[in-house]
């Protein structure tokens, strides 16, 4: 065990979990598609935080590398998602996600 247990691990995991649950709850509750996107962001960031905390804990740089990836991913996702939202708004004149249920069985 090369490094001692960092004192902030439990705190970090707890913070990340709370963040993720917040994001998930928001996703499930909000109907506005913009807010849902923001909640997705919160979820991704929770995951990214988790990487950093774990990286610090294990003394491994991989966590920080993954963080960069996550940030890139989030950026790409937002770009695509916003484009879709624009299309959606263009067609339906609303940002209510419940109107978007054409794939029902």
């Amino acid at each position, binding site marked *: 065990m090369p490094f001692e247990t960092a004192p902030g691990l439990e705190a970090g995991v707890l913070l990340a979990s709370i963040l993720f649950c917040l994001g*998930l709850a928001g*996703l*499930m*509750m909000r*109907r506005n598609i913009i807010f849902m996107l923001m909640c997705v962001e919160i979820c991704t960031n929770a995951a990214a935080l988790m990487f950093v905390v774990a990286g610090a804990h294990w003394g491994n740089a991989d966590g920080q590398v993954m963080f960069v990836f996550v940030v890139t991913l989030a950026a790409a996702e937002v770009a695509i998602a916003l484009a879709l939202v624009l299309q959606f708004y263009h067609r339906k004149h609303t940002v209510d*996600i*419940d109107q*978007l*249920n*054409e*794939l*029902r*069985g």
Partner: protein
Amino acid sequence: MQGLLAWVPLLPLIGFLLLVAIPLFYSKEPSEKFVTAIGVGSVGISALLTAIVATTVFWQNPGEVVNIALWQWMLVDNLELGFNFHVDWLTLVMLMIITGVGFLIHLYSAGYMREDPDFRRYFAYLNLFVCAMLILVMADNLVLLYLGWEGVGLCSYLLIGFWYKNPANGAAAQKAFIVTRIGDTAMAIGLFLLFFEFSTLNIPQLISAADSSGANSQIITVATLLLLGGAVGKSAQLPLQTWLPDAMAGPTPVSALIHAATMVTAGVYLIARMHPLYMLSETAMTAVAVVGALTLLLAGFSAIAQSDIKRVLAYSTISQIGYMFLALGVGAWSGAIFHLMTHAFFKALLFLSAGSVILSLHHEQNIFTMGGLYRRIPFTFICFAIGCACLAALPFTSGFYSKDQILLRAWEFHDGFNSLWLAGILGALVTGIYSFRVLFLVFAGSEGSSSSHCKDANNTVMRVPLAILATLALFGGMLAPPLQSVFGTQTWEHPAAWVEGVAIAMPLIGLVIAWGLSRQQQKTGEKRSPIMQFWFSGWGFDWLYENLLAKPFRNLARLNHKDIIDSIYKGTAAFSQQLNSLLSSSQNGQIRWYLATFAAGSILFLALLVAL
């Protein structure tokens, strides 16, 4: 000379083919004269050929048997069937009846059916019938016989339903075919059984095999009873007699040819042909005799109650064939065939003269509307009277000689006084009653409602056959065919004189009763007492079969017309569709709902992970 026999059935067949094929070459309907020439001519030449062969070949040598092999029909494994004819005296008698009486009826038809729009179709069917009937009696194996057997059934169906526009005729035709087919199926199973036992269906081989091998008597009994089933169907005997009265829906000459003179006697021919087999089984013989005795009484009583002239004759045909079956059952083989022959003469005569009556009255058939016709159509009256006398077996008519043979043999069969003889005697009385009743009701007494517009419809082509048949019916008793070569010499001593006397007296008593009955009925009209009503309905057999067989079958069929088995598959399909709609309700397209279930699933999964 013997080779000519092959042409006998072939000529009517050619006639049929020509008549059917005409529209292929000729767009107009051919003239009646042309059709008559083909239709009547073909049967006429057949009759001529038969007469030539009979006089040149058979007359000198009563034991003569002619075999004509045409071609091999089937040869599979050990099933060997030929398209071969076997003609002996029994066949020859039948040939002469079919072609001779057939020709006369064809000739009469040319007059009776004049101006019918379907003249050509009529003669085509009639020719086909003659061909099939000839094959039936000439066949040397049972399958070829069966071919003719079903063939005549088909023609009977077609001719009963000849005037197809009336659905009642169609129903009668259908009934005739299906009821006889029930018998035919029994007969077919009998054929299978015979082949199973003897490995052949050739009649002479079958008979010699049955005679020599000491064959299993139970199998022979079953087989002969099954053949009897076929005979009973075709000859309208108990319990399959119900079709014949309805079959009167056809044109009257058809009733004369098919339902009196030839086809319905095919059952008698079959049993006579197979008589060596029947002689091996006492059960079968008894069955034949009992069927005959019961039928002759049942049908006789029914005939008393009828009001349609043709139905009277139909029931009398059933009854007379009952006599033939009785004769067969008591072993009076040649008596049965003799009666078959005389019956063909007088019953054809009766039907044809009834046809003249019907035509003269513009298709009126109810005898209660007739009466006093002897003044208006005397020729027809004489013919009908001769027919009735023969039917009732008044002394010195042909019917007397043949029926007498049967009654004497029945008397002797069980050593004197016995139920079979009693049935025959009682039947003779009943025959006297119904035959003279119809004669008196139609021709004697005061004129009925339809008598007034009676116009003699006979023309020459109708008169000639009637006259010839009347002569044959009167003097046919002297033409007892020499059948010893087929049935062996049968001798029996004459019983006491009083037995003979009773047989002679019965028709005369019947005549007297008939006179009283017809006087009374002409006054009361068509009203019937309950017992008469029961007889009128043919002892309720139609009602019984309708409710016991036809209706349940129809209901079952109707109930299941959607095919119960299909519902299994339909059920499976419906079940899958239900399942599908159940699951697809979760696919509602709501992202938030998906997400929630996803989260719930994850939590469940994590919880499981922790718990384990």
